[in-house]
């Protein structure tokens, strides 16, 4: 554990972990040291000079953002001297800032506005001057308004730390500004439009492109929730007004760089109201899909399911919530009485790898081993994992990549082990044992003829030296990777959908036919839940599609049931790191759409059975599987290698095509061509 240091700030005793800076330490006791360039989670750089404080025994004031706590320190944060300095700094900034707070979209959230208020500065006491910078409106995501920029550099540092490195300082003196290399538009500068910089900016220099007239900060209703669009399941804060979502920010408290969300999570929400959004149930009459009532649609569904019984099958995506999954399982197993219920996780994982994965925290790990995975912010495959790893590496952690293909994140790895992953994992296990680490006999004896290269030797040495090694593995290589974790470290199999782990834990893994088998086996009734990655109607007598949008598959269905999006009802998921996360309702369901769970309950009611709404208790109980790692043979599970790109684009097709993300897809496609 970290050492604790005792100090005094404004007369209050503070106990802070060694290494903490004064701004964070003061916050522990409710004292706010004004700051603009410091961003929680990023290193202090001392640019704005607002956080100057006085420390007894030191001649001149020091910056709080970059001064660490020391035992016995006596700090004063509000002396006349530093208050005067702060006023001077704000005064100077105001002399070069557009003072249009009355219409500024950042009003209410703007740190500069707040400090001007606190220091009672209505105007600058210097001559005010405009720089006359043009506004950058070359994309539908982020507007760049350099005129507002106070050069705090938060955006530059954040973008650099997460590995995108798009923004940089340019120019000198008063003409310094933040720009891109060669001043090219963001799209041509490798920007992924994650919008991290939007959240970082303390002023209005980087607002969302469509923010103007979409409501003022204080008018919003803010709800903490989770994005379910990819395997990371990132925390988000949803701001809505008049029943519509106006913007989405990262789930971390404002003023902190700890969390990342990608363009899907931040800008995909337009799809809620896109043209293909389903508002009522549909049923096929005379070869055409026509609107109908819930009552009618559900009674047909109930009837078909009852008749089909064991001949019915359910396929679902793994982006549904735990409560939905539990209800679906009950409907299938107890009411319809079929063994055929499976999800898309079976395309890339076996349930055990996800279930047996351990719980871990990336932010304290000092060595990350990536086995057979290719996270990429640019391709939006597990982008938050990519960003988190890069952030950790920038903070001194090390990365080992074990992958037979060339992948982008290699560029920050200290060791890249190419060639067959299984042989490399075997090599590492053997090298670890060779260096004196304990392993069980069976494992040891299975490694007799394994070769150890110099690189493997180095990797093993790093694992031994690390205090918290963490292995992220593709599910197909989980058991082989787990053999290493049995010797040292933790292991996690990462799925590509937000609730893959939750689905496995809730037990929505088939007792009968698998997902793929159900598509071909000519079931009497096939019931598809969510945006399953299918364009063509599978071989079945009767197809039910339950989704928020009218997909290509839904157009070929016999019955279409409109489900609510994850913004429209509450529930939980278990994210890839094993954390139970809560989703809250941000807006009312559009049209007559209902949550998946509610639809299942309604069906079973018509079928004469009662399923109770699943509770969090139930979810928690289901999540409590004791993970027992046991040494297994070093083999790769076959049949699990789908293309993650295709899967993610396919399960998010309505999101991409129903939002400004389409611009990005087409623009990237155009530049690639």
């Amino acid at each position, binding site marked *: 554990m970290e050492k604790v240091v005792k100090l005094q700030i404004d007369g209050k005793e503070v106990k802070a972990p060694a290494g903490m800076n004064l701004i964070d330490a003061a916050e522990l006791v409710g004292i706010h040291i004004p700051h603009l360039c410091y961003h929680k989670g990023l290193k*202090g*750089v*001392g*640019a*704005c*000079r*607002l956080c*100057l404080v006085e420390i007894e025994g030191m001649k*001149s*004031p020091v*910056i709080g953002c*970059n*001064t*660490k706590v020391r035992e016995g320190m006596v700090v004063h944060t509000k002396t006349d001297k530093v208050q005067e*300095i702060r006023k*001077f*700094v704000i005064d*100077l*900034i105001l*002399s*070069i800032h557009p003072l249009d707070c009355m219409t500024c979209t950042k009003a209410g959230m703007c740190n500069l506005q707040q400090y001007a208020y606190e220091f009672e500065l209505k105007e600058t006491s*210097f*001559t005010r*001057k405009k720089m006359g910078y043009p506004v950058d409106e070359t994309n539908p995501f982020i507007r760049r308004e350099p005129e507002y920029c*106070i*050069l705090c*550099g938060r955006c530059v540092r954040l973008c650099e730390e997460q590995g995108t490195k798009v923004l*940089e*300082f340019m*120019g*000198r*003196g*008063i*003409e*310094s500004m933040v720009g891109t290399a060669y001043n090219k538009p963001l799209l041509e500068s490798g920007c992924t439009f994650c919008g991290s910089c939007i959240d970082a900016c303390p002023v209005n220099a980087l607002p969302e492109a469509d923010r103007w007239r979409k409501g003022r900060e204080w008018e919003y209703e803010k709800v903490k929730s989770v994005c379910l669009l990819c395997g990371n399941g990132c925390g988000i804060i949803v701001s809505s007004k008049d029943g519509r979502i106006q913007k989405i920010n990262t789930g971390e408290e404002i003023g902190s760089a700890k969390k990342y969300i990608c363009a899907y999570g931040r800008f995909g929400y337009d799809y809620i109201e896109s043209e293909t959004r389903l508002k009522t149930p549909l049923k096929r009459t005379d070869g055409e899909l026509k609107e109908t009532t819930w009552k009618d649609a559900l009674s047909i569904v109930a009837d078909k399911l009852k008749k089909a019984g064991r001949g019915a099958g359910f396929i679902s995506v793994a982006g549904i919530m735990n409560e939905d999954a539990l209800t679906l399982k009950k409907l299938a197993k107890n009411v319809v009485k079929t063994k055929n219920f499976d999800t898309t996780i079976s395309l890339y994982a076996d349930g055990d790898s996800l279930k047996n994965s351990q719980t871990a925290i990336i932010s304290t790990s000092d060595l990350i081993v990536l086995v057979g995975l290719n996270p990429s912010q640019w391709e939006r495959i597990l982008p938050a994992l990519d960003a988190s790893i890069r952030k950790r590496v920038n903070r001194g952690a090390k990365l080992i990549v074990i992958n037979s293909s060339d992948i982008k994140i290699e560029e920050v790895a200290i060791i890249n082990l190419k060639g067959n992953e299984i042989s490399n994992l075997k090599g590492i296990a053997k090298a670890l044992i060779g260096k004196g680490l304990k392993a069980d006999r069976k494992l040891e004896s299975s490694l007799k003829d394994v070769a150890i290269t110099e690189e493997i030797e180095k990797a093993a040495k790093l694992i031994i030296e690390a205090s918290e090694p963490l292995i992220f593995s593709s599910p197909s290589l989980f058991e082989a990777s787990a053999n290493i974790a049995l010797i040292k470290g933790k292991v996690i199999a990462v799925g590509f959908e937000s609730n893959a782990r939750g689905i496995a834990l809730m037990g929505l893994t088939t007792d009968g036919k698998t997902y793929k088998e159900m598509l071909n086996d000519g079931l009497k009734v096939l019931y598809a839940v969510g945006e399953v990655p299918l364009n063509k109607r599978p071989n079945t007598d009767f197809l039910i599609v339950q989704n928020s949008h009218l997909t290509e598959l839904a157009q070929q269905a016999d019955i279409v049931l409109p489900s609510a999006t994850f913004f429209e009802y509450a529930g939980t998921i278990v994210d890839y790191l094993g954390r139970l996360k809560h989703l809250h309702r941000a807006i009312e369901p559009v049209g007559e759409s209902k949550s998946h769970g509610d639809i299942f309950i309604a069906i079973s009611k018509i079928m004469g059975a009662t399923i109770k709404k699943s509770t969090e208790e139930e979810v928690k109980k289901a999540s409590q599987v004791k993970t027992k790692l046991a040494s297994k043979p070093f083999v790769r599970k076959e049949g699990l290698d789908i293309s993650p790109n295709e899967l993610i684009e396919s399960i998010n097709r309505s999101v991409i095509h129903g939002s400004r993300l389409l611009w990005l897809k087409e623009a990237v496609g155009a530049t690639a061509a």
Partner: protein
Amino acid sequence: MTTIATEFAMNKDILIKVCTGTGGIASGGEAVLSSLKNAISSAGIESTFYERCSIHKVGCRGFCSRDLLVDIIINGEKTTYKNVKPEMVPRIVDEHIIKGIPVKEWAVGEEYYTFHNKQTKVVLAHCGEIDPEDIHAYRAVGGYEAVGKALTSMSPEEIIDVVKKSQLRGRGGAGFPTGFKWELGLRIKSDIKYVICNGDEGDPGAFMDRSVMEGDPHSVIEGMIICAKATDSHQGYVYVRAEYPLAVKRLQIAIEQCYKEGYLGKNILGTGFDFDLKIFQGAGAFVCGEATALMRSIEGKRGMPTPKLWRSAEKGLWDRPTVLNNVETFANISRIILNGADWYSNLGTERSGGTKVFSLTGKVKNTGLIEVPLGISLREIIYGIGGGIEGGGTFKAVQTGGPSGGCIPSEFLDIGVDYESLAQVGSIMGSGGMVVLDETSCMVNTAKFFLEFTQAESCGKCTPCRIGTKRMLEILERITAGKGEEGDIELLEDLGQYIKATSLCGLGMTAPNPVLSTIKYFRNEYEAHINEKKCPAAVCRDLITYSILEENCNGCGACKRACPADAIRGVRKTPHRIDPDVCVKCGTCFDACKFHAIMKI
């Protein structure tokens, strides 16, 4: 080819030295060098003569206002020629070298000897004397003996002890005691440590470090090797701005020679000590001379200062312990090791040992590079070495320390030049700039000139320096344009104090100095600009009016013809008149009139 070797030329040792520093080259050094070689070889003297007659490129010797300087030393007797042009070469060769009679009227005069004799040369001792591209020449004057001594017979602690006792302080500006810096460097243990030489020299007009790197590069390298030994470091960088191609070239040659002769690389002089040295060419921003910005620049990042949470001694370049010193600081080291700490410290004052190189410019008779013991008075420098005010004007102030230094008025001419005394009167030592100003300099305008530079060179990172210096500059612009308002002086003082107190790095912390010091000593000039809308020195264009003094004007019409704005009225042979509404105040008429009839007030 006839062989008419004179009796004189046959038996003598002849040594010719041509200045080929950047200044020398700019004054035609290379051309003179080749015409010398031509003239001698075609003089028809027998072949051994050419061999005996050695011609050397040497570095700058400081007296740049008389460039090109050529020394001809015959049997130890030296004649120095000034302002040498290629066309002068044949006569010098014929009369002096062949016939033995120096060309008196081309030789330097008394002022050259005053200029040199009043100096104490330690760092510049070999500049202008030895061939900088020849390691043997350096060795011939004792070069690398100090490395030999330090590596074979001294422990790191002993080296540090000598440097500490010598009272050598950093010559890059701040004057941090070098020995202490090294001690810190040694105390921190790490498998990788760096030694960096700061040769950025961004001050406009400064060329002390450049002259040393060009004229005596080995002395810098020798200092670095000894520093590496003292701090247990094995890798070094010389950071030179890319605008110094000659310095880069000479350092490169010197480093190659060192690797060949075993002064760099593995197992130096068989002592088991390793040290590798590389040159890094900087992009040449002023702020890159600041230690932390310089390290970021070597790391490939934008040259922006970073807060000194850890002193560089602990976490410097790539977060490794790093000792960084200025060029001149390093150049002193070998001499200190050889001559002893007492010798060096006795040259200077109690708290600042040794000598310091200054570039003396402005309104003095003898401008150039000078080296003087610390503690010497400003008066001795300006009136002794400098020969007094050029053109018979009167001294007004001396601006020291480069663009962020202050202006010192005549009442302080007798203070001794050292770190503390200069700080006491509101200026700094800086890297050693010294600009002499006379009554024709406007102090407000001078302050504005320096601030223009620093504000444009601010890296833009921190608020006070980025915005504050700009606001100060705007006020100065206003004042010099005749739009000054009551309260402007106080506003400048306030801004200046705040910027000094709150900026992140030395640039911002010193940028207000020229303004604050001129306000302090020449407040009346500011007041004249603001209240009377007058520039007492008649420099600020918007505040001057040109008029014609009737009694001096004979109506020659020279001014009328010269005026680009057609502002002058008058008939030939009768006094002319300037129409103030049309006059653009360019001053052309002032220069055109031969009868002192144009008045500028």
